């Protein structure tokens, strides 16, 4: 009865849209959120197409736009798109690795009205950071970029993805964020699908490492209260309750790929048989309201009995669909991160085994041509 309506006028407008302007990126992080099969540069939406997306998003009620990728600053039209987004009233956030833009390009973005910057780091330790990103010299570029952001008076969030190689330095990463005058630091354990699932054994931290990181974060929050906001995203494999992935599928958020496909979450293409609409073929408002991919897991109707009978069903919304797909073979199962899932013990066992074995080499993220460029077939499930 309380479930959001799947169609019609009751559906609330989306809060945010993330634009993957390109899949190109100088870094090759082995946990990249981009799909295994990435969009080629020739398929990317043009400036006018992205502007139309921004117009439609604002009209639909979107409040915030995240310019992401890949590395969004490799797009020469980024400042122009930021200016357009501001003109139509959107809050503009840049999610960047900080290694690709020079000062002049950054100044153009500031002049265009950029509101906020999220800068990724791979580690506080430069050597490990540059091994993870497979890019020598990245750390200094990032530190310089952070300085430009604060000199321009923009608020800075530092994003750090943690894994077995750097989780012991969570405290140093927080200190680095403070020294860069970031207002916020987001420390997120790797989410295991796509590239990260391929690299699970190379990335999974041990449980005792995770516990130590929790204590470090708690102490830092107390010490730095009012000075910096610390968000910590715990690893699903050691969790007891699932995350409310995307705050509910198709309820708050849209992700648009470089070629214009509109996804309920960035990893949604790992779920076979979902049909994604493109902004090239259909108006954004119609996609939000009616796209079959959005309707597939919106609300509670799709849920298995385990979720339907649970009092958390409208709090965690059954967790992550992509994780359920990757680990149980069905996107309609409860997220195995949930302690009530019959797959939970297996998930935990997998994490324990992988994290205590020697770490294999990274399989770095790379753009490889699609086997069939014209195919719209779903991506194969990784792992």
């Amino acid at each position, binding site marked *: 009865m309380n479930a959001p309506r799947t169609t019609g006028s009751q559906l609330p407008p989306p*809060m945010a849209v993330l634009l993957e302007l390109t899949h190109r990126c100088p870094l090759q992080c082995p946990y990249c959120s981009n799909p295994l099969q990435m969009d080629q540069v020739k398929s990317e939406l043009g400036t006018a197409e992205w502007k139309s997306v921004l117009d439609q998003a604002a009209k639909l009620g979107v*409040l915030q736009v995240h310019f992401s990728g890949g590395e969004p600053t490799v797009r020469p039209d980024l400042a122009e798109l930021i200016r357009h987004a501001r003109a139509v*009233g959107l*809050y503009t*956030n840049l999610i960047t690795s900080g290694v690709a833009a020079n000062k002049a390009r950054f100044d153009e973005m500031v002049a265009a009205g950029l509101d906020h910057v*999220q800068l990724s780091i791979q580690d506080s330790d430069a050597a490990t950071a540059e091994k993870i990103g497979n890019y020598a010299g990245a750390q200094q570029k990032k530190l310089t970029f952070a300085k430009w952001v604060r000199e321009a008076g*923009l*608020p800075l969030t530092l994003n750090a993805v943690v894994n077995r190689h750097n989780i012991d330095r969570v405290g140093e990463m927080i200190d680095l964020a403070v020294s860069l005058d970031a207002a916020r630091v987001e420390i997120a354990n790797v989410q295991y699908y796509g590239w990260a699932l391929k690299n699970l054994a190379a990335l999974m931290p041990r449980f005792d490492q995770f516990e130590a990181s929790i204590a470090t974060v708690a102490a830092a929050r107390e010490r730095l209260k*009012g000075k910096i906001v610390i968000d910590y995203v715990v690893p699903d494999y050691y969790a007891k309750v699932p995350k409310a992935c995307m705050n509910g599928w198709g309820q708050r958020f849209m992700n648009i790929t470089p070629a214009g496909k509109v996804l309920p979450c960035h990893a949604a293409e790992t779920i076979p048989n979902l049909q994604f609409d493109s902004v090239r073929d259909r108006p954004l408002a119609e996609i939000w309201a009616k796209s079959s991919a959005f309707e597939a897991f919106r609300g509670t109707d799709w849920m298995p009995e385990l979720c339907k009978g649970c009092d958390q069903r409208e709090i965690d919304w059954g967790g992550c669909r992509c994780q359920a797909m990757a680990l149980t073979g069905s996107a309609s199962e409860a997220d195995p991160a949930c302690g009530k899932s019959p797959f939970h013990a297996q998930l935990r066992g997998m994490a324990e085994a992988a994290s205590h074995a020697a770490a294999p080499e990274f399989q770095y993220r790379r753009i490889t041509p699609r086997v069939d460029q014209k195919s719209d077939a779903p991506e194969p499930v990784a792992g």
Partner: protein
Amino acid sequence: MTADATTGALDLESRPRLAPGVRLKYDEARSCWVVLAPERVLMPDETALEVLQRLDGKKTVDALVAELVTAYDADRGEILADVTELLNGLLEKRVLAL
């Protein structure tokens, strides 16, 4: 100059303002006011909106409270307590700066 938004720092002479990167705007699609901040959207209730709309970085907490006392014909002590709690909460979230 970067203000240290330490919660203990708020007093009657403080001049709170929206932090850099935070905007208050009327949202036509939802017919309500929203606070747009890094990675978050807040929907202020009537009281919070009343306070946020009066903040300009020049007005002291003392002056703000005086305005509200006049506007609502209310007890100064009560207003001060409510305003202090609200402002401290927003400072901690880095929505406001001093």
